[in-house]
C-alpha cells in the first residue's frame, strides 16, 4: 500500500470536528414535557439542554397534578429538525419524564405568556401608556401618581410589541413568565 498523498493544507478535520450534513434551517418548537414532580427534575431537564448545547428560548414549570405529583414543563427551543428530534429523544430517555409532546407538530395550539411591566411617567406619556394598555387589553394592577404596573397576557409576540411601545413611555422593569402552551380542542 503506498503512502497517502494528501494535499498539505487541504481542509482538515479532526475526528471530533464531525459536523453532520443535516439541513441547517432552524425551526422554533414548543415542547410540553410531563414529568414526576420530584427534587432535581428541573435540573435534569436544564442540564440536558446545557450539557448537549441545545437552546432554551423560554421555559416554564409548575405542578399540574397534585395527587399524581406531575409537573408540566413547557420549553420553547430552536434548532435544526435533526436537533429538535434529538432534543425530544433525549428528553424522552430521562427516567422521570413520562411524556414529550411537540406542540408545534401535533396540531394547532394556544400559547400564552403573562408579563408585568412597571411604567413611570407623568403628563402626556402617562396618558399615552394608559391608552395603549387599553388597546392591548392590559390591566393596571398597581398605580401611584407617577407609575403604573400593567399586567398583560398574550402570545410572546404581543408581549414583545407592548413592551416595545412602553419603552419610550418610561418602561422601568419587566417580568415575564415564559410560554405556557396547550393543544386546541378537536
Amino acid at each position, binding site marked *: 500500500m503506498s*503512502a497517502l498523498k494528501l494535499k498539505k493544507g*487541504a481542509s482538515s*478535520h*479532526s*475526528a*471530533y470536528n464531525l459536523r*453532520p450534513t443535516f439541513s441547517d434551517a432552524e425551526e422554533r418548537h414548543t415542547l410540553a414535557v410531563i414529568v414526576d414532580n420530584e427534587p432535581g427534575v428541573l435540573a435534569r431537564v436544564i442540564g440536558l439542554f446545557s450539557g448537549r448545547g441545545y437552546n432554551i428560548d423560554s421555559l416554564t414549570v409548575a405542578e399540574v397534578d397534585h395527587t399524581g405529583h406531575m409537573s408540566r414543563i413547557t420549553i420553547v427551543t430552536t434548532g435544526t429538525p435533526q436537533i429538535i428530534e434529538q432534543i425530544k429523544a433525549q428528553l424522552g430517555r430521562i*427516567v422521570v419524564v413520562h411524556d414529550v409532546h411537540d406542540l408545534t407538530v401535533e396540531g394547532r395550539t394556544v400559547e400564552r405568556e403573562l408579563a408585568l411591566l412597571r411604567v413611570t411617567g407623568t403628563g402626556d406619556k402617562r396618558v399615552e401608556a394608559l391608552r395603549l394598555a387599553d388597546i392591548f387589553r392590559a390591566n393596571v394592577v398597581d398605580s401611584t401618581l407617577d407609575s403604573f404596573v400593567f399586567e398583560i397576557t398574550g402570545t410572546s409576540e404581543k408581549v414583545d410589541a407592548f413592551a416595545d411601545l412602553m419603552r419610550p413611555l418610561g418602561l422601568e422593569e419587566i417580568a415575564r413568565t415564559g410560554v405556557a402552551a396547550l393543544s386546541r380542542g378537536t
Partner: protein
Amino acid sequence: MTRQMTGAKMVVQALKDQGVDVVFGYPGGAVLPIYDEIFQQNDIRHILVRHEQGAVHAAEGYARSTGKPGVVLVTSGPGATNAVTGLTDALMDSIPLIVLTGQVPTFMIGSDAFQEADTVGITRPCTKHNWLVKETERLAQTIHEAFHVATSGRPGPVLVDIPKDVQFASAKYLEPAQTKTSHYQPQTNGDIDTITELVEALEQAERPVFYTGGGVINSGDEASALLRELVDATGIPITSTLMGLGCYPASGKNWLGMLGMHGLYEANMAMHDCDLMINIGARFDDRITGRLDAFSPGSQRAHIDIDPSSINKVIRTDFPIVGDVKEVLRQMLSVWKDRGAKVKREAIQNWWGRIEEWKKINCLAFTQTGKTIKPQHAVHRLEELTKGHDRYICTEVGQHQMWAAQYLGFEHPNRWMTSGGLGTMGYGFPASIGVQVAHPEALVINVAGEASWLMNMQEMGTAVQYRLPVKQFILNNERLGMVRQWQELLHGERYSHSWSDALPDFVKLAEAFGAKGIQCSDPADLDDAIMEMVNYDGPVIFDCLVEKHENCFPMIPSGKAHNEMLLGENASTADAIDAGGGVLV
C-alpha cells in the same frame, strides 16, 4: 410479609432480594451502619478495594463478564466524587451498575458538613438516574427501582444517595414484588413493518454488511446466538466495534475483524463500499465513522438500537428500528424464514471476492526481528498461548488496547472488557479484579500499558488480599504510546510530556505487594515467560519491555474517510495528516 428494620439492614436485604452476591466498596463515616450490617451476614461478599474509582471499575468488570449488574458501596463526599470517573465510564459504555453512597444526615445537608458533597448534583449528568433518599420508608422501594432502571432499556449506572440518619431509622421493608410497578418500561420489540422492509432490502442488496456493537453484548447471550444464526442464514460479512467484540466468533467464516480508527482494512473498506449497512447495537461513534460527509457514501443504513436518541443522532437512517437487539433479531429471523428469503447469491459472491482482495493486503502484518520484542508480537504470542483457556481479557487505554483488539480473538460475548466510550486509563486493572471475583477459576488477563496501569496500581493490594490470580500483561514502552504516536503524526515529532523518567521496577513492585513479578525483554524468552505467568497461581505483573517507538496501524487519520487508511510498514506517516490537522484533536 412486611418486616420492620433499619435502613442499613434494608440496604443489605434489598441487595440479597435482588440476587446480589458481591459488592465492591470502601467504608467511611457515612456508610458505617451499612458496613455494620454487612459484617453480620454471609450471603453477600464484600471486596475491599483501595480507591473508590477501583470499586466502580471492578463492578464494571463484574457486570460485563457476567451480564448481571455490578454493585458498589462507598461513603459520602470524597467516596462519591472518586466514583465519578467510573460512573461516567459506565454511562458511556452502557454498563449496568448500582452505586450506593452514604450521605451526611438529612438535617445537615446543605451545611457544608464534614465529608458532605452534593452527590446527586455531581452525578446527575454521569448516571442514567439517581436518587437522594430522605425517608427510610422509601429506601427499599428506591433500591428496587434502581435495579430496574439500571438493567432495563439501555443499561447504565444509577446511584442511590443514603443519608446516615435514614440508615439508622426503622421502617417497613418492601420486597421487590411489593413495590409499585415502575412507569419506566422501554420498548423492546421492533416495528415489524420496518423490519420487513429491511429484510426486503437485504434480499435486494448486493454489498451488505453487518456492523455490530456493544448493544448485542448487553442484550445477552441469546442476542449473540441469534446474530450468529442470522449471519449464517444470510451469509453476509460482519464487522464489529471495539465494544462488540465476541458477539460473533473471531473464527467465524464471515468475520471481517474490528472496524474503526484502528480497525482492519477489509472491515473499513467493506463499510465504505457497502450498499446496505445493518447497524445492530452500535452508535456511529466518531472513532467508527471518521469523516461524516465521506462515510459510506453509497449505502442505505439500518439502525437497530434500544435507545431512540441514538437513531439519527449523527448518521441519517433509512431503516430506524427501536428495540432490544435479541427481540429485533428474533423478529427479523422469523420474517426471513416466513418469506423463504434469499440473498442475491451471485452479487454476494462478487462482494466476497472484493473482500478477499482487501484481506490480501494483510493489514496486521508485522515482522519480529532483532532482540527487541514488538508489541504486536507480544500480543500475538499471548493469543497463541492462551486462546485455548477459559479466558477473559481486560485492557487499559491506548496502543496496547488497539493491539489487543486486533490480535486477540474472541469467540464468545462477555469475554472482553475495555473502556470504549470514555477511554479511561486505569480501567483495566480494577476491571480484571471484578472479572476474577466473578470467575474465580478463569484465566483473567489485563493487557496494559505501563502508564495506564500505574493510574490504579493501588489495587495490587486488593488482588493480593483476595488471592485473585489476575495477570497484568504490561507492554512497557516507557511512553504514553498513543499520545506519542499522535505527536509524531500531528505535532511535528515534539514529544511533549509523553514519557516517564521514573518508572518503577515492576518485578520489585509485585514482590513488595506479595505478588509475582516477571520481566521479559528478549523475544526468545517470551513464550516461556508467558507460560510462567499463566501457570502461576496468584497475581502476576508481567513487565514486557517492547519496542519504544512502534506505531499502531492500520489507522484512519484524523478527519479522513474509511478508504483513506494508513497501513503499517510501507506507509509514510510524514504525509499522512494535513498541516492544519495539528490544531485539532
